[in-house]
């Protein structure tokens, strides 16, 4: 076992060490707990960046430890370009959420448990992206769910959170069980739990089985992506979750569904198997895009507006994947990253608004630009970002997704409709910004000063969004190499 392999295992083990320290340090203050959390998560971010050079030289970094020999199950991790994009996205989002958390009230009680669960939530996602064993993948996949449910249950808003957390758990668990069935079917029929091995052998399965597995995989992962009509868990869960958790849910966890679709059905089976589903994926993406946008337009709760925008944005991603073209899929991968940045930014803005005004109804908010100038600028950039305005990032990814749609071989009308549908995004984004920040300051609102811990990460994310939009070359290159992994590249 060489140094790189040990480092790779560190991405999962170091956060776990952080969790153990936090659980033992029962009297840790919020700041102390946050430091442990941020350091552990920071390590999980630095390691893949450190290993980037190895990936660039075409190396595959793997770590494997025998776990349950009788069942051929091992603790295997593998870092490739596809995993890297998703891993860095989710770790970065979690880090931002942890820092943002310092400026608001969540987790002031039982801070050690709060940060331990945030770390476990993130560990679930990083493990999901790195796992090279189907058993291990599922363990991490469910860890992600359990940690997030506990965070909502313990620190969520309102008495309704119990009912909503159960709904969130059960609905997403149904999707997970569909994935589990697929994983076990492959494990049993091909005699291996290694994802790398399964990827090379999957095409040996009977065509009918490949088709059924593809359906199950797609439906299972679409639940996590919150694609209409499988989105029913999302708006409520996002609304009652504490803001840092909402940020992670929307900006990072949703993308795990995208990762699943790319890593499993698309990487496992040939495009011939996927082809019959392409049109359905594109149509589902289109419907989700328009439905999410319309609901965001109709909603009055500021958090729900941004929550529904996630349903809409996931629609774009599914549309891009469904095109089954290189451009469309690279666009989808890029959209995951850009969406994560924009969504984190918008929820942080909403967090500042709620912290400053104690108000969530959009109709009761107006004219905040006069008193929250910095937040207004961030919100404006976020709103423009989600609308796909150049040169902000989403413009790049949407461009590629639409190009993929036109190149898919299906009626251009489908892509035109998706393109037109993006107008709704512009409308709800402008409504969100215009209603809250422009006009006269709404009477009866008592403003409280926003802590710097809320403002600083928000500004940082805004700057990052601009930079990422202006300099998309490296992300584009990562996404292209990530897609190469899906289609049989070595790393």
């Amino acid at each position, binding site marked *: 076992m060489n140094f790189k392999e040990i480092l790779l295992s560190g991405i999962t083990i170091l956060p776990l060490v952080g969790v153990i320290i936090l659980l033992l340090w029962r009297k840790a203050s919020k700041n102390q707990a946050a430091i442990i959390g941020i350091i552990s998560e920071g390590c999980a971010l630095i390691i893949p960046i450190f290993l980037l050079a190895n990936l660039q030289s075409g190396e595959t970094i793997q770590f494997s430890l025998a776990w349950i020999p009788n*069942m051929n199950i091992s603790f295997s991790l593998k870092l490739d370009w596809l995993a890297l994009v998703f891993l860095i996205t989710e770790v970065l989002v979690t880090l931002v959420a942890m820092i943002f958390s310092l400026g608001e009230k969540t987790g002031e009680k039982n801070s050690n448990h709060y940060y331990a669960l945030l770390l476990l939530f993130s560990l679930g996602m990083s493990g999901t992206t790195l796992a090279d064993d189907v058993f291990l993948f599922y363990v991490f996949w469910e860890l992600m769910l359990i940690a997030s449910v506990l965070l909502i249950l*313990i620190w969520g808003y309102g008495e309704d959170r*119990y009912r909503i957390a159960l709904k969130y758990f059960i609905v997403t668990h149904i999707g997970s069980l569909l994935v589990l069935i697929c994983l076990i079917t492959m494990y*049993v029929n091909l005699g291996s739990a290694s994802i790398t091995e399964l990827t090379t052998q999957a095409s040996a399965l009977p065509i009918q089985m490949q088709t059924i597995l593809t359906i199950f995989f797609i439906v299972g992962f679409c639940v996590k992506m919150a694609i209409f009509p499988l989105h029913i868990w999302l708006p409520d869960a996002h609304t009652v979750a504490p803001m840092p958790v909402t940020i992670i849910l929307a900006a990072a966890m949703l993308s795990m569904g995208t990762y699943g679709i790319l890593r499993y059905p698309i990487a496992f089976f040939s495009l011939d198997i996927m082809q019959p589903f392409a049109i359905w994926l594109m149509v589902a993406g289109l419907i989700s895009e328009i439905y999410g946008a319309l609901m965001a337009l109709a909603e009055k709760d500021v958090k729900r507006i941004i929550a529904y925008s996630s349903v809409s944005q996931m629609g774009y991603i599914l549309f891009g994947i469904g095109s089954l073209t290189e451009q469309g899929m690279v666009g989808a991968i890029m959209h995951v990253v850009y969406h994560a940045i924009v969504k984190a930014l918008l929820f942080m803005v909403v967090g500042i608004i709620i912290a400053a005004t104690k108000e969530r109804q959009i109709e009761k908010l107006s004219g905040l630009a006069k008193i929250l100038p910095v937040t207004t600028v961030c919100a404006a950039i976020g709103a423009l970002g989600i609308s796909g305005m150049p040169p902000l990032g989403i413009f790049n990814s949407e461009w590629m997704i639409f190009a993929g749609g036109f190149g898919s071989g299906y009626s251009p009308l489908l892509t035109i409709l998706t393109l037109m549908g993006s107008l709704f995004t512009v409308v709800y984004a402008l409504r969100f910004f215009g209603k809250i920040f422009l006009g006269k300051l709404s009477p009866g609102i008592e403003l409280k000063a926003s802590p710097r811990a809320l403002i600083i990460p928000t500004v940082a994310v805004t700057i990052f969004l601009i930079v990422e939009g202006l300099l998309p070359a490296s992300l584009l290159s990562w996404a292209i190499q990530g897609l190469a992994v899906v289609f049989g590249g070595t790393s």
Partner: protein
Amino acid sequence: MSGSIEAILPSSILILGAFGIYLAARFLRLSNRVEALLTVAVISAALIGLLTLGKNSNGILSIYGVFEPGGIQYQVDVVGNYITATSFFIGILITIYSGEYLSKDPRYLLYYPLIMLTLAGLLGMFYTTDLFNLFLLTELISITASALIAFRYKKEISIKAGIKYLIMSSLGTMIMLFGIYFILQGSDTTDISEISMNINNFSRIGAGCFLAGFSIKAGIVPLHTWVPEVYSGAPSAISALLAGVISKSMLFVMAIVSIKLGLEPSELGLYLVSFSFLNMFIGSVRALNQNNIRRFLSFSSIAQTGYLMFIMGIGFYLQIERAIAAGLFLFLVIAVTKCLAFLSAGIYEYHFDTGYIDDLHGVYTIMPMMAYFFSLALAGLAGIPLLAGFTGKWLVFSAAISTGEPFAILGVVIFLISTIIGLGGYLPMIVKQFRSSGNGFEFPGFQRELPKISIWMSIPVGILSILVIVIGLFPSPLLNIINSVINWIIWL
């Protein structure tokens, strides 16, 4: 009389121990805890005897008894060893638990001997080579279990539960007696090995009768009606023993006996799989919206019997060792998690005198460890990853899917639906313990003094909690044991 005396050692230890401890406790006026400790020593000695027997027999069966018509013979059975060793282990834990649980009960003298006799009866059911003895041993368990169920006879719910179990159980043994009558018509012997060499229609009818009789004792739907009342009326420790091991063991005895009497494994498999669907579905659905914790656990137990029936049924129907191995694994998982759940519920009852989850809102604030233990049991039963239940689920699905048979796939689908419905029961149960409206624990009878859990109760629940995690994380040693058991199975 000849044969290896080792074959009757565990049973002898238990039976002699039962009488010896009863007499010692009566005449020496031993306290509840001393009697509990002596019982632990006896069951442990029997367990060691059983494990030594399994180790030494090395696949060769030990037989002991009178090898003449009407003689009593015991024949070591490896599956029986696995099942009874698990039961003895659970028996030890519930005895330790009872050291505190029965501290307020003056009638403890009889309690521990009854537990030992129940365990001796269970072992005998696996070991006996004679149908009439099997009938007697089944009756023994019915009577001792009924007495244990109705142990708190001043409570109406307990006495009702005891009578119901006795009636239903006796109905089962009566059907078995009919079976023996039919078998005698065709074979003129009650020796199981002789009957199995001369299978005829009468013996097959007899096998059907044993199937029906044991179906009642195992709680197979629609013969499950006694389950909710018995498990919610009995002392928690006894519910743990019955739900965790005794009723599930009946499925294995049923399988062994009915196959030996001439039922084709495929017929048995078909029966088990068909009725497993009902168990899975009805158990999960009825478990929803139950406020009484033990009633909830009873219905979930019916569903778990269904899971076990399903995978054992697949194993018998298609003669797949992998499925039988998954069944044996699942048996132990259910034993550990179900026992933990019932014992945890018992601790709540012991301290707050309530068995209703709605009375325990926010109990986490005053009994955090108990809330964790009980949640662990429920999460284990729900099949949450890294806990024993998930590994069991993985093995069951793997075995079922590997067959590629449509009915096995259908079973997996029903299993999944049952799991999802089950979540609707398990999750609220977990959440309510941690949920409070800001004032912490609000049970009206609570005196604001933090209840201290006795070490007698915390040791068993602690051990079981560790096992729920360890079996989930590192199932390899257990799988190795099961593989060796599977290799020795001669009746498949």
